[in-house]
């Protein structure tokens, strides 16, 4: 049976106001069942108040080989980093 099952990624929001966080994956027959298994596999100790499941095949992911062209160019532009700027006097945080 497990050959026919699909892989789903599970995201759980642990409390109101927080984001859904990726917690793992599981196999299920359809999204409905994936949601129930997510409840059984990942939330039995009061971890969450909301669950998302997404079919893994629906995720488009960047590749390891893209690293150079994706991220390196960002680092030589210091004005893109918040640390570049000094806070005006009298302001502790922004």
């Amino acid at each position: 049976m497990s050959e026919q099952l699909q892989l789903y990624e599970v995201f759980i929001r642990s409390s109101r106001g927080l984001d859904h966080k990726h917690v793992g994956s599981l196999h299920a027959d359809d999204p409905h069942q994936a949601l129930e298994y997510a409840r059984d596999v990942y939330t039995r100790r009061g971890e969450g108040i909301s669950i998302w499941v997404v079919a893994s095949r629906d995720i488009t992911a960047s590749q390891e080989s893209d690293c150079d062209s994706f991220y390196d160019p960002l680092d030589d532009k210091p004005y893109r980093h918040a640390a570049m700027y000094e806070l005006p006097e009298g302001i502790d945080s922004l």
Partner: protein
Amino acid sequence: MKLHDPLTRYVVRLGDDALIMGHRLSEWMSRAPFLEEDIALSNVALDFVGRARLFYQYAADLMGGEVTENTFAYQRDVRDFTNLLLCELPRGDFAFTLCRQFLYDAYSLPFTQALCKSADSQLAAIAAKAEKESRYHLRRSRDWMLRLGDGTAESHERCQDALDQLWIYTDEMFECDALLDGLIAAGIAVNTEGLRSEWLDTVTETLHAATLVIPEAQGNVTGGREGIHTDDLGFLLAEMQFMQRAYPGLQW
């Protein structure tokens, strides 16, 4: 172990249903068709064992003395158990286990809802917790009925076979006896006869959606409430009680 107080007998009866059902489900641990279902089934097993503990702890409080929850689980003989026969039937194949579960969950949800209104506050409190579990159990087992019944030719056939075998054990859930009559009058026990139509509605709707048919009535098997069981319960108890029988009072 003979129990006389009606309330204690009723509480133990409910504990027995939960313990034996939980044990049968626990037999699937590491044997379910795939990992996720293994965890899910084990969770349901734990819900039932947890429910049994609450009932047995309450019964132990009612009895006082040296009696504990373990006394009820481990130190009673097969004739002292008053669970439904439906709960003790061997787990069979996956379809059989899930069909049994569905037939029981469809009863357990309205039962726990009704028990929430019990005049006995302790029973009502246990029921409030159990009702939430039962709602989820029914959702799960109903889902499986649809998957198996409306699945492949083999899953459909196995499911229908299971239902045909189980049907004669379902009537016992709604049986009333002298013990229940007294407690129902006192507002403590659930009048199970009154749950029958809701149960049948749920079962009819689900089986229809699952392309399964309601088995024809062929009479009923009963006796669990009086301690008259199938041979299978003896084997279950022999395994479950072995450690406490061999080493009384053992703790770990």
